């Protein structure tokens, strides 16, 4: 028991929670934005992979770190444009299109990476984002090292979560977004163009997903390798349901999830005789459990996965 308490009382755990949560916050917010407009984007896993690859590649070729993040975001928006063209303009199956984007974006990432970087025994690295100590706050005992010595993209992800919560609930744009996801016909009648809103939400959401991926190669690690996203995209899709499509809760859900992940990583060293695979399974099982608990209670956008064609019912 005391081993458990020791883990929870270490500042290192809480610092790790924020670090693990960051890509999930980006990805969950991106998926949430898209789904609030009425479109599920299962391209997330591939878009995160592509963002991780292209952001890293830009920095590897001499760009600075923020340019790398920007390149990743733009690439994400491009995949979002493809998804929007197929699911919004043509009204194709959002499930299958998204999976297709994931398969395409991830294999394209590996192709470009392999072309740009020849096979080497040790993968090449870049200098990643360094932790920034918030002046004053980082000197606080325990809380300082736990919460205020993160890299800038982590702080950015939290700012974006708060900003998104504000936009969704407090601005005309947010109202138009929610209308497009709840009832696009009514939105149209109010002079809102649901098609444009959906294009915008999918592209902006995909940009956020790609930034989550880029965080992996530019902050959490310093190199790119295939399959490094490891299902984080799918976990984000589950977190959106867990958050009941609310940005604030998405932030909370990602942090809660990251807490369990950081906790099990440290638990592995305490419980040495349990196979490590059991611990690695936990995030996925936890996501499934969260879905089972929340699916009925969550407030699904009413027009989610329904294509909207003007003049067609």
């Amino acid at each position: 028991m005391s081993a458990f308490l020791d883990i929870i009382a270490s500042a290192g755990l809480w610092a790790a929670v924020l670090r693990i949560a960051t890509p999930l916050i980006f990805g969950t917010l991106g998926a949430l934005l898209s789904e609030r407009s009425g479109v599920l984007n299962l391209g997330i896993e591939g878009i995160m992979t592509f963002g991780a690859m292209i952001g890293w590649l830009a920095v590897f070729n001499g760009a600075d770190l923020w340019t790398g993040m920007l390149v990743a975001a733009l690439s994400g928006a491009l995949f979002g444009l493809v998804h929007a063209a197929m699911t919004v303009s043509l009204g194709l199956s959002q499930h299958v299109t998204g999976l297709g984007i994931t398969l395409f974006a991830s294999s394209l990432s590996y192709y470009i990476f392999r072309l740009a970087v020849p096979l080497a025994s040790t993968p090449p690295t870049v200098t990643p984002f360094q932790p920034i100590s918030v002046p004053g706050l980082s000197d606080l005992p325990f809380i300082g090292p736990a919460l205020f010595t993160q890299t800038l993209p982590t702080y950015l992800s939290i700012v974006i979560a708060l900003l998104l919560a504000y936009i969704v609930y407090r601005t005309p744009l947010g109202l138009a977004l929610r209308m497009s996801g709840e009832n696009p016909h009514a939105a149209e009648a109010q002079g809102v163009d649901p098609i444009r809103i959906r294009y915008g939400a999918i592209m902006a959401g995909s940009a956020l997903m790609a930034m989550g991926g880029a965080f992996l190669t530019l902050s959490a690690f310093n190199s790119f390798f295939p399959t490094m996203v490891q299902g984080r995209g799918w976990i984000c899709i589950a977190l959106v349901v867990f958050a009941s499509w609310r940005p604030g809760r998405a932030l909370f859900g990602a942090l809660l999830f990251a807490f369990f992940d950081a906790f099990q990583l440290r638990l592995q060293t305490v419980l040495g005789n349990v196979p490590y695979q059991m611990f690695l399974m936990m995030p996925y099982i936890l996501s499934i459990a969260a879905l089972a608990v929340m699916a009925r209670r969550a407030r699904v956008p009413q027009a989610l996965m329904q294509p909207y064609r003007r003049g067609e019912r």
Partner: protein
Amino acid sequence: MRLERREHRPLVLVVLSPILAVVAALAIAGMLIAAAGAPVLEAYGRILTGAFGTRLAATETLTRATPLMLTGLAAAIAFRARLWNIGAEGQFYLGAIMVAALGSSALSGLPGPILIPFLFAAGAIAGMALMLVPLWLRLRFSVDEVVTSLLLNFVAVLFVSMMIDGPLKDPLAFGWPQSMPVADHALLPKLVERSRLHIGLVVAIVAALLVYLLQARTVFGLQSRAAGLNPEGAVFAGVPLGRTLVKVACLSGGLAGLAGAIEVMGVKSYVTTDLSPGYGYAGIIVAMLANLNPLGVIAAALFTATMFVGADGMSRAMGIPTYIADVTVALSLLTMLVAIFFTQYRIRR
């Protein structure tokens, strides 16, 4: 400019759509090959000769197509009923590990003609069991099965990794994490001498025919298609939706599990965590390329296997990463979706 639903789907378009989709995908992938500084037509030529140039290459392509047919069928039958089974990868691994466990146990004392069908069934049941989890979650808690079946892939592979690192680990494998091999008489007979091609191909083709007949000629087939076309209408017409979906899930998961079983018994004889180069996910593409038609799955699996096997040879000769095969196949899924759309809609000014 607007889109208008076609009154009827012209047969020419329906037949041409997969071909046009593949041509479009090859054209886009060709740009990527050109961007890498290689001659595009020569690259595609080498893919063809790499896949069919020699007798050995052709048998290798057919060997690769076998699991793709089965996972393609698994996706096709589920998607037809609008049951989104994205978990074929996990079901494949669970079928494989089940066969490795039983095929290396005391049960392997059974004679071959009994043991082989028994192991087929065991692998299928393992895949079925895994697919019933997301279905149960959907029916009981209304959880979208896409995400749950996807997440279970990771759980299944980790479970396999745990088994081959633990109770099923082969002590003779110099410390490598791989399962004990199945008994020699549980291995599938070869179709062609001195090649890897085994009778699993015949099993896969027969499975495609059976699924076709099941869908076209039986009450269950009608009910499963109705469940996909219009669930509310189907219930109204007296289709037992839950029971139909359970049957579809069993069939779909079973086919994916069988694919894993056959891959172990036909090709590898033991299980590692790289047994499948994404057969489960590629199955989704195969199913879509076939427009969910079980007989089309055979052709779509052949195309996909051609790309994968051919790209290996082309890559060695021309320095283009083998991932070009994955890119092309994924692209053809996207172009196929658009092609199907234009068999149903036309553009009007």
